[in-house]
């Protein structure tokens, strides 16, 4: 006897195929426009934008070349493993010769769609992903053969249930206190479970050899990423938005190619450092972003605002899992035995992470330390603390971080927003006031 639960109680109600197709088409067209618009604006703001950026413009088209490429590789027998957040051990996916792609969703239009079944109090990142699923919009989500879902916040926990109606979902349980001796052991078991699942899905064993290769590949990516970051420490040779785009494309691009292209970009930028060819005025206030992930393309409204406002700001660094945190930490292997590599991977993904889902005896102090260090390293003039309504964890940590920053005499601005374009005008006024204040401070 089928239980009540089993009798078709999916989260998302059935929709007529024609409606799905129509919505899919219209949202996709709108999204392509947003992508194009973003790139146009980035080009306009940075005259003399280097050639190497073109590659990233192309990859940034979510419905373009990369999607086709993955489709082809899928037909050739490769598996695609999606993941919802940077807790997923990419090295293991690569080692098993599968394609890792991040499936988080940044479409404002699909967030509205998600409102049909999700209450508005819920974080729009979640609503948007649900909406995207409703109309099969997200290419990478659709292409995934399975999705790794670390249960970092309540939104993601329930999201995993919703997506489970369509795809195999591999849950991961990050411990909330990361530096207790036993929690690392727990997390390592989570990693081991994922390892087995990846092996089963792909039919490829994760061996000492291929895991080592995958780790080295990711180390190279981190190396390239750090090279780019170092260039952001000095006078501006790249605009913040452009660097953010470069970093974010690593979430769906082929890692090796991405590394190579970033290195090409850095070659060019390093020359510009010598020639003092700046992307904008060197005395532009230097801004750090922190808080809720900003997902391409719609969330670019914030960096667009900052870098196009008057006075202008320059995003030099961020503390976001959609940005600088993706590739910041390398997997540090001591002995290159299988178990040491697995330990190294477990540690890398748990301990170095500054997600607000953690706490400890001293609170989530690792995040605060990260922010303090970056402020000093990148000579940040002010911090914009970005939170979307419903993102409780980031919202709650604000007060403490503000206190720390106040003590350091670093102005911080709490920018709360929604997945909507309607508040841009009003946000502009607020951001400009903040940047004006930063500029005034710099003059003194």
């Amino acid at each position, binding site marked *: 006897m089928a239980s009540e639960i089993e009798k078709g109680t999916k989260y998302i109600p059935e929709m007529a195929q024609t409606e799905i197709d129509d919505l899919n088409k219209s949202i996709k067209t709108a999204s392509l426009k947003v992508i194009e618009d973003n790139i146009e604006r980035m080009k306009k703001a940075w005259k003399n934008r280097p050639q190497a950026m073109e590659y990233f413009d192309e990859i940034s088209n979510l419905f373009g070349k990369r999607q086709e490429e993955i489709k082809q590789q899928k037909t050739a027998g490769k598996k695609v493993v999606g993941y919802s957040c940077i807790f997923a051990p990419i090295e293991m996916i690569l080692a098993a010769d599968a394609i890792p792609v991040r499936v988080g969703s940044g479409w404002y239009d699909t967030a509205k769609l998600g409102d049909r079944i999700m209450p508005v109090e819920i974080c729009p990142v979640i609503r948007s992903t649900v909406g995207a699923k409703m109309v099969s919009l997200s290419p990478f989500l659709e292409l995934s053969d399975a999705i790794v879902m670390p249960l970092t916040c309540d939104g993601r926990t329930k999201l995993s249930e919703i997506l489970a109606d369509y795809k195999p979902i591999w849950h991961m349980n990050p411990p909330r206190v990361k530096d207790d001796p036993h929690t690392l052991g727990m997390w390592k078991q989570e990693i081991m479970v994922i390892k087995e699942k990846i092996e089963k899905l792909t039919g490829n064993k994760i061996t000492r050899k291929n895991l080592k290769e995958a780790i080295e590949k990711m180390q190279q990516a981190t190396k390239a990423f*750090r090279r780019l970051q170092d260039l952001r420490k000095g006078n501006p040779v790249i605009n913040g938005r452009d660097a953010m785009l470069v970093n974010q494309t690593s979430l769906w691009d082929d890692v090796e190619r991405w590394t190579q292209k970033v290195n090409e970009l850095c070659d060019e930028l390093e020359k510009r450092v010598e020639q003092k060819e700046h992307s904008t005025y060197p005395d532009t206030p230097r801004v750090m972003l922190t808080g809720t992930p900003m997902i391409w393309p719609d969330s670019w409204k914030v960096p667009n605002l900052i870098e196009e406002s008057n006075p202008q700001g320059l995003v030099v660094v961020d503390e976001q899992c959609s940005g600088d945190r993706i590739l910041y930490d390398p997997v540090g292997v*001591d002995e290159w035995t299988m178990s040491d590599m697995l330990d190294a991977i477990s540690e890398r993904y748990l301990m170095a992470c500054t997600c607000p889902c953690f706490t400890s005896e001293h609170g989530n102090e690792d995040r605060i*330390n990260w922010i303090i260090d970056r402020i000093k390293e990148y000579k940040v003039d002010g911090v914009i603390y970005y939170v979307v309504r419903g993102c409780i964890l980031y919202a709650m940590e604000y007060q403490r971080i503000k206190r720390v920053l106040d003590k350091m005499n670093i102005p911080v601005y709490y920018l709360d927003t929604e997945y909507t374009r309607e508040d841009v005008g009003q946000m502009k006024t607020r951001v400009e006031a903040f940047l004006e204040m930063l500029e005034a401070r710099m003059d003194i």
Partner: protein
Amino acid sequence: MLEIIAETLRATIAVALILAGSLAILIWVRNNTRKLSALRLFIQIAAVAVIFLGLIIGPFGLERWSYLGTAPKDITIGKEILGRPYPDGLTVPTFSCYYASGRTATCVIWQLQSYLFPNYGTSSIYLTTGLERLAIAVGLLVVISVIFGRFLCGWICPFGLYMDLLTRLRKALKIRHWTLSDRVNEGLRQARYLIIAAFLILSFLLGMRAIAGVELISESELGRYLEIPFCQICPAKPLFVLVEGALGFMDVDYMLSQTIGDFALTGWYLTSINIVILGVVTVGSFMIRRLWCRICPLGGLIALFSRFGPFKKISLIKLTKVEEKCTKCGICKRVCPPQVTEVYEDKGGDVTVSSCILCFRCVEMCPYEGCLNVEFAGKPIYKSKNWLNEEE
């Protein structure tokens, strides 16, 4: 008077040269992060060569010790200190074993035990009084500990090198090391001090031979063994003499003839307890990195004079951490041979602890620029690097 000045001058020059040399080496490696471990191995080997220099120059005309067969004579440095005869030579807090041939300096543990009871060594070569000798030994121990701390363990001690070689062998065989639980590790750390107390008290009491007319031990062979109690269980002694025996530098027959026939005390140079302990430590340190160092009383002695009380403040080598730069990634904890957890756990500042052998593996592996730093006399001499850049 003049002699004293000359001696002091000579000693100062020697110390200055050693200091300058070590500094030069450290500065040289400053930009070679990932090569630090290789450099350390090189220095360890060089140190063994210096400590047992007699073995190297012995074959080229150095006087032999007839009663040891082919063994070359020791070329002990510092047979005179401040114009006073100091026949056992320079005291060093490292396992430069008294029993092995060709040594240039002497293990402090042996000297402490021998000199502890003032009547020791009545023969004519021991003209200095027992107390004077003890003062020199302790003084040198303190001074060297303050200057180098357990850097001696990480970079100089021959027995440490032996364990590192076992580790390298294990790595080559692709076997993963075992770890001890933090509790066991802490237990071993504490046990070091018990061992130190036990051997000091024992050697003092037994050195007296008799208390108020009650004989403790007789003037016999057994007395000779028991006055130096730690050396009869030390795992380093059999290693050195067996290696030297195997290489033909020492006469194994002679070594074994120094016996009183007891099972436990087969000889002055080798006791069966020594050999068993060496066996256990060898197997143990093959699987567990630097196992012996976690309980080694010599390491404990150095720590005592570099990591506690007033010595902590004046000790010259320090490991420091910049709190904000540390992401708590845990790499330093995992790669540490004696499993020091404090570098990871402590907030910033001085994170040197008594169980740290100052091997700087953590500094080498910490992936964040300037997060971990080595300081000598307050000057940074080596720091963690973005090692991704150096793996070409």
